[in-house]
């Protein structure tokens, strides 16, 4: 299940909803991404997330489908916020549920790596020196690439 929204989300509620009334799930892994208060050595005032409505949801659904093909997952939740966020605020949530922990861990990491590489979001930072579009980190492409090796 994927959602793109301006509102905040509740990681505990999402985790609990995933395994409520189920008895087949042994492992739930979650990732929460947060806005850090500093960037390029400057204090961050705010971060604004722009996205491509429609394509974003399609890409996230594709990534979820790909994860479900690679691992046997009981459930997947991806929530990504857009709009203006302050330091300390939540940006993204990924939750994976599986019978065993290895699948849940790997799938959560895969979802984040692919989301960072493929989902059409763009971050703009407001710092003391002005507005700056966030540049992608090479390590994000590397992170996604490793899932296609051996």
């Amino acid at each position, binding site marked *: 299940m994927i959602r793109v929204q301006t509102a905040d989300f509740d990681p505990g509620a999402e985790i609990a909803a995933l395994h409520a009334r189920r008895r087949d799930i042994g492992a739930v892994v979650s990732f929460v991404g947060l806005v850090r208060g500093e960037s390029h050595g400057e204090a961050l005032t705010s971060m604004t997330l722009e996205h491509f409505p429609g394509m974003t949801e399609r890409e996230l659904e594709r990534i979820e489908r790909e994860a479900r093909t690679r691992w046997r997952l009981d459930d997947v939740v991806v929530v990504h916020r857009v709009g203006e966020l302050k330091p300390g605020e939540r940006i993204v949530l990924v939750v994976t549920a599986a019978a065993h922990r290895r699948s849940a861990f790997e799938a959560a990491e895969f979802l984040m790596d692919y989301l960072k590489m493929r989902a*059409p*979001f763009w971050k703009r930072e407001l710092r003391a020196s002005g507005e700056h579009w966030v540049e992608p980190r090479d390590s994000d492409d590397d992170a996604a690439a490793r899932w296609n090796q051996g």
Partner: protein
Amino acid sequence: MRLLYFAWVRQMVGCSEEIVDAPREAETVGALIAWLQTRGGGYADAFADLKRVRVAVNQDHVDFGAPVRAGDEVAFFPPVTGG
């Protein structure tokens, strides 16, 4: 053909969405970009360094060799930075 621009590509071009009649020769993403560059101003700036530009046709990531047709929705944007 419907063109969409996001993030700093949008800011440089100066608009987020437009309908264009691309010339017949603009049969690929690369050829379409070459034609947009000829429009000068913000377009020339936005497409000055093509290593920094990504493209989606009808909401699918594609490379510059991908075909484009009348009626397609073509989106131009920087490398994504979500998560």
